[in-house]
C-alpha cells in the first residue's frame, strides 16, 4: 500500500474500491505564531470517511482534532493557512466558495455541537428553528409540511411528546433534550456526513450515553458517515460499535494510530495510545499507581509516517525505526 499523501487512509480501510463520502489528503493547518513563523496545528493528515461508518478522532486537548474536523468541512479559521485537498462528492471543499459551502452545510453535512446552547437560538421556539432549516434547504414545500416533518424528526431522536417540545423555547427543556433537538436539526436534511464534536461531554453520563446510542442508531438507518470527536476512550468505544468503525488517535496535530476500533482499543501498537489506555482510572489499579503518560511521549513531535502493522491498522513509526 502506498505511503504517499493518502497514506493514513490505509488504516481501517480494507477495500480500496469503496467510494469515500469524504476524502482528505495531506491536510495541514497552521497559524501565524506571535514569535514569527507558523505553528502547525494539523500536520499532513490523510483520512477517508465512508458511508455508515463511524470514525472517531480520539485525542487530548490541543491535539488538533477539532481544528482538523472543522477544516475538512470547509470551516477553517479565517486566520489559518490550510494546505492539502478535501474531496466531498466531486467538490474540493478547501477551495469551495461560500455559496457552495452554504449549500453543503446543514444540507449534506450536518453538525452536532458540543454545547447545544450555543447552536440553538434562545429567543425562538424549537419548532421554528427546525422548520426554518427544512424550508431553507427546500426539504418542505411549506410551513405546514415542515411542521409535520419536524414532529417526525423529534420522534426519530426519541423525544416523547414532540408537539409540546415544538412549542418550547430551548431553556424550557433539559440539556439532554436540547442535544437531541440539535441532532434533529443536524439530520433534518438527511446528510451524508455528520460531524459530532464532543456531543456528550457537556451532558450527564447517563444522558450522554443515550445521545451517543442515538447517533449510532441513526447512522445505520440513514447510512450516514460520522466523524466523532472525543477525548474519552469509553465514549469512543461506545460509538465505534460496529466492526468496520474506526478510531484515529491524534497527538500534536498528527494521527499516530489509525485502525478498526477493536484494533486500536484492544491491540494498541503506538506507545502513546498504549500509555493513554493504561492511564484510565480503574478500581483494579492500586491507589497511587495509575500509569502516567510520559511527557517524552506526549510532547514528542517527530513521529514517522503511518505504516500498516496488520490489514487496516496503521501506526506512526518511532523516529528510531525510521532511521534504522
Amino acid at each position: 500500500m502506498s505511503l504517499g499523501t493518502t497514506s493514513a487512509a490505509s488504516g481501517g480501510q480494507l477495500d480500496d474500491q469503496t467510494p469515500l463520502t469524504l476524502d482528505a489528503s495531506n491536510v495541514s493547518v497552521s497559524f501565524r505564531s506571535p514569535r514569527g513563523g507558523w505553528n502547525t496545528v494539523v500536520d499532513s493528515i490523510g483520512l477517508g470517511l465512508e458511508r455508515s461508518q463511524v470514525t472517531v478522532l480520539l485525542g487530548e486537548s490541543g491535539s488538533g482534532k477539532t481544528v482538523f474536523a472543522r477544516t475538512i468541512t470547509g470551516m477553517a479559521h479565517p486566520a489559518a493557512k490550510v494546505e492539502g485537498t478535501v474531496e466531498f462528492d466531486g467538490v474540493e471543499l478547501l477551495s469551495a466558495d461560500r455559496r457552495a459551502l452554504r449549500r453543503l452545510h446543514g444540507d449534506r453535512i450536518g453538525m452536532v455541537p458540543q454545547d447545544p446552547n450555543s447552536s440553538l437560538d434562545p429567543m425562538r421556539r424549537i419548532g421554528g428553528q427546525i422548520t426554518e432549516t427544512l424550508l431553507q434547504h427546500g426539504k418542505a414545500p411549506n410551513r405546514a409540511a415542515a411542521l409535520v416533518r419536524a414532529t417526525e424528526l423529534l420522534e426519530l431522536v426519541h423525544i416523547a411528546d414532540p408537539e409540546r417540545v415544538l412549542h418550547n423555547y430551548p431553556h424550557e427543556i433539559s440539556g439532554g433534550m436540547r442535544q437531541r433537538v440539535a441532532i434533529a436539526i443536524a439530520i433534518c436534511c438527511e446528510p451524508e456526513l455528520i460531524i459530532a464534536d464532543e456531543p456528550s461531554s457537556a451532558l450527564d453520563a447517563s444522558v450522554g450515553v443515550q445521545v451517543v446510542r442515538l447517533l449510532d442508531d441513526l447512522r445505520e438507518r440513514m447510512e450516514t458517515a460520522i466523524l466523532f470527536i472525543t477525548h474519552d476512550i469509553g465514549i469512543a468505544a461506545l460509538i465505534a460499535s460496529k466492526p468496520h468503525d474506526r478510531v484515529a488517535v491524534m497527538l500534536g496535530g498528527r494521527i499516530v494510530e489509525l485502525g478498526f476500533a477493536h484494533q486500536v482499543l484492544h491491540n494498541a501498537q503506538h506507545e502513546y495510545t498504549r500509555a493513554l489506555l493504561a492511564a484510565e482510572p480503574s478500581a483494579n489499579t492500586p491507589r497511587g499507581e495509575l500509569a502516567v503518560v510520559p511527557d517524552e511521549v506526549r510532547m514528542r513531535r517527530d513521529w514517522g509516517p503511518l505504516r500498516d502493522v496488520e490489514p487496516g491498522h496503521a501506526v506512526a513509526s518511532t523516529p528510531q525505526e525510521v532511521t534504522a
Partner: protein
Amino acid sequence: MSSVLAADGIVKRFGAFTALDGVSFRLERGRTLGVVGESGSGKSTLGRIVMRLMAPDAGVVTLGDDDLFSMTERQLRMARRRIQLVPQDPRHALNPTMTVQQSLAFQLRAQGVPTREWSARCVELLARVSLTADYLHAYPHELSGGQAQRIAIARAIANNPEVIVADEAVSALDKSVQAQVLNTFAELQSDLGVALFFISHDLAVIEHISDDVLVLNRGEVVESGPTRAVLDDPKDPYTRVLLDARHSAEAV
C-alpha cells in the same frame, strides 16, 4: 473511631427547590469518601456546606468535635485551615498576579511560619506534589492544567489540613494528566493521613480513589457504604443507571 468530618440531616432549600434533603455521612481520618451524582444531585451544594461557604436550613456539620456552624469568626478562621478546598478549575482559584511561591507563602504567613523558613517549606510542598523548585517563580498562566491543579493541592496541604474537599478536581484534566493528579492525592493520603471528601460525576475516578461512596440523587442519599460493596451490588435503581452508563461505555 471518631470522624474528622461528619454531617447529620443536612437540608438545603433554594426557594421551593430542595437541593439537599436530610443528607448524613461520616468521614474518618485518612479515608476517602467519594460523593457521586449527576448534575442537580446536590453534590456541590454539599461540598459548599461542609466548607461553611453556605449555611444549611437544617442539620449539623461537625469538624472533629466542633460544630462548624456554631463557631465564632475567630474559631472559623482556625477551622478553615483544617478543611481545604481543591476546586475544579485551579487557574481560576490561583491568584493570577502571584507566583507559585507567593501563593504558597501567603498560606504559610497566615499560619505564622517564620519568613526565613518559607522558601524551604515551599520547595518541600512542591516536592509533595511531584514538582521541582523550578516552578516557584512561575505564574499561574505559565502552568499547564495538571501543574496548576498540583499547585492548588500544594496550597491546600500548606495548611496541614485534616480534610481536603476536592470538587470535580480532576474532571477538567486530560486523561494523562488526570492520572498524575490522582496519584498525588493518593500519596498525600498515605503520607499525611489527610481525609478526602471527593466529589465527582465520574464513576471510574470514584471507584479508583474512594474507600466509601455516597450516591446522591436529587438531594437524597440513595445509597452509601464501602465502594466495592455499593458498586458491585447496587441496591438502588439510580446507582444502577449510573453504573450502566459507565459499563456500556466500557464494554468495547
